[in-house]
């Protein structure tokens, strides 16, 4: 039965991805003018335009191009960049790793941090430190990520202290992890944006769980307080939080764009902004699909965690 539920979720995820691909591809049909003329310039002869159209497959009807494009995605062929003329896959290849390092670091640090702080706040609810932390998380949750990033640059890199690099200055081809000090500020920015939401959700569900009958029961039968919290309360509060964590991790895939631009970090986000500036549609499409795929996978994982942490679903589903 458990497998059936997971199978259903998998099918639904596949449906979402297909629909997103239709949306992302459909957007290009709104593009004014034709791509071949944009590449070749105003002086191009009709023959050359026709030849390039054929080479790019633009002489085919839209649905045929859609299936060619979709088929290409499955085998890792993301098409040809209209700005550089090179393969989109090669352009994104090195950058995917760099972006995933940034997102992975932020996720690994902020998820346990958020859960820990949320539990701490719930245990001290109503006290001054709880209120202070609620205030701080409200403030952090409000600000756009580039505002937080610039604040960090002003404090740690330029105006107040000059202890950390303000931008990433890795020579092309060199892996970003060779200079860990350049990763600190971008990662910290992402952590400060993502953690407050996790803290708020964890605090709310934890308070609810702490007030419930089974926690009181555990206390009354003499279970040590530490065990009550770690074994009885926290696992129960994790289910709803997994959803918020998923939303935040999926947000990372989009939020990383601005942060990479701010710190000149050589990742997917930077490539996306360049592509938008040069109206390089193929690159924008490929990155949009990648981001949507990350979202779908992360959500699937959150659903599985939700099922595993809820005994009712685990056995009966």
């Amino acid at each position: 039965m458990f497998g059936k539920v997971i199978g259903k979720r998998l099918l639904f995820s596949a449906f979402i991805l297909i629909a997103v691909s239709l949306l992302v591809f459909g957007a290009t049909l709104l593009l004014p003018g034709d791509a071949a003329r944009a590449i070749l310039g105003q002086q191009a002869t009709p023959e050359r335009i026709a030849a390039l159209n054929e080479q790019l497959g633009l002489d085919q009807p839209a649905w045929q191009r859609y299936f060619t494009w979709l088929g290409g995605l499955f085998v890792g062929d993301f098409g040809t960049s209209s700005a550089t003329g090179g393969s989109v896959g090669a352009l994104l290849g090195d950058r995917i790793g760099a972006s995933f390092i940034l997102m992975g670091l932020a996720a690994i640090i902020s998820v346990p941090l958020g859960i820990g702080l949320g539990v701490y706040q719930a245990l001290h609810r109503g006290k001054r430190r709880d209120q202070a932390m609620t205030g701080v998380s409200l403030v952090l949750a409000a600000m756009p990520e580039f505002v937080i990033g610039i604040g960090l640059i002003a404090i740690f890199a330029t105006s107040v202290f000059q202890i950390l690099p303000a931008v990433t200055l890795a020579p092309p081809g060199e892996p970003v992890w060779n200079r860990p000090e350049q990763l600190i500020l971008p990662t910290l920015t992402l952590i400060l944006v993502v953690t407050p939401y996790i803290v708020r959700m964890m605090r709310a569900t934890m308070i609810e769980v702490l007030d419930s009958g089974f926690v009181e029961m555990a206390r009354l039968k003499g279970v040590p307080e530490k065990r009550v919290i770690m074994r009885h309360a926290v696992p129960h509060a994790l289910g709803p939080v997994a959803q918020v964590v998923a939303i935040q991790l999926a947000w990372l895939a989009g939020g990383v764009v601005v942060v990479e631009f701010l710190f000149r970090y050589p990742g997917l986000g930077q490539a996306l902004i360049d592509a938008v500036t040069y109206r390089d549609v193929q690159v924008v499409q490929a990155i949009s699909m990648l981001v949507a795929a990350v979202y779908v996978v992360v959500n699937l994982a959150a659903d599985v965690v939700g099922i595993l942490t809820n005994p009712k679903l685990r056995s009966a589903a």
Partner: protein
Amino acid sequence: MSTDANSLDDLKSAATDAAEVPKESATTYVPFYKRVLAQKQGKIGLTITVVIVVLALCGPLLLPWATGNTATQFVTKPFSPYGLFGSDNLGRDVLSRFLAGGVTLIVYGVLATALGMIVGALVGMLAAYIGGTFDAVIMRINDVFLAIPQLVFALLAITVLGPQGWVLVTVIGLTHAPRIARVARSATLGVITEDYIKAAEMYAMPRWKVLIRELLPNITGPLSVEAGLRLTYSIGYIASLSFLGLGLQPPAADWGLMINENRIALSIQPWGVLLPVVAIALLTIGTNLLADSFARATASTSVEA
């Protein structure tokens, strides 16, 4: 804000005299705005928001007093005769560009939020009210839109349609809509079984009238919270996009663009970056605090003493 003892006693005696006095009048109902302002967050949030909005809207009117100066690049001394906060990368006065640069952000933010609220609330209410297949289809379409982060969606739209104001407002408003529709739908499902809805339907009130007159007034609480949150996010996204160079184009004065143009000189002339950064930060904090106080005000119909 509890009712004082005298009037409460009056009400009680009135209630014993005439049995048909509705129960409502004896409760300590407090209007929404008073519930918001009774909280610290509400007061602080409203004050900050009003200050920044007034500054941004009146800024262009103050320009003649602040402008009128072109110096060499990055005059490093703020508070000098070159202008109160020095000049930027092209020798333009930072203070006057700051005063002129907030209007578009606020106008776009409000427009995008309004568009998202109208479309989202309508779709969500219709999905809940009609139900069945329509509801299922709408919510699946919602799920598809939710799979693409709003910023990435906006970037996709800008690639295709170009960085124009209406594109920013439309795409941010429309990507808010599925998120708002979820909230509107669940709020509507909460009130749809109430007797007054059934009564209205029995009187053969047209469907659209039931939606507008009976349902909408009863879900304003959750919708107001959502509006506050969405305004915060709208401002954030629009500022981010113009920071990325994809909003207003140079030489327009705009807070996000100013930050982008001046950040290379953060260490020698910080004011060109700090003024707009602080303004955007305060504005979003203000609207977020307001949204939070809306949420608390909605949770209880009266204020705890």
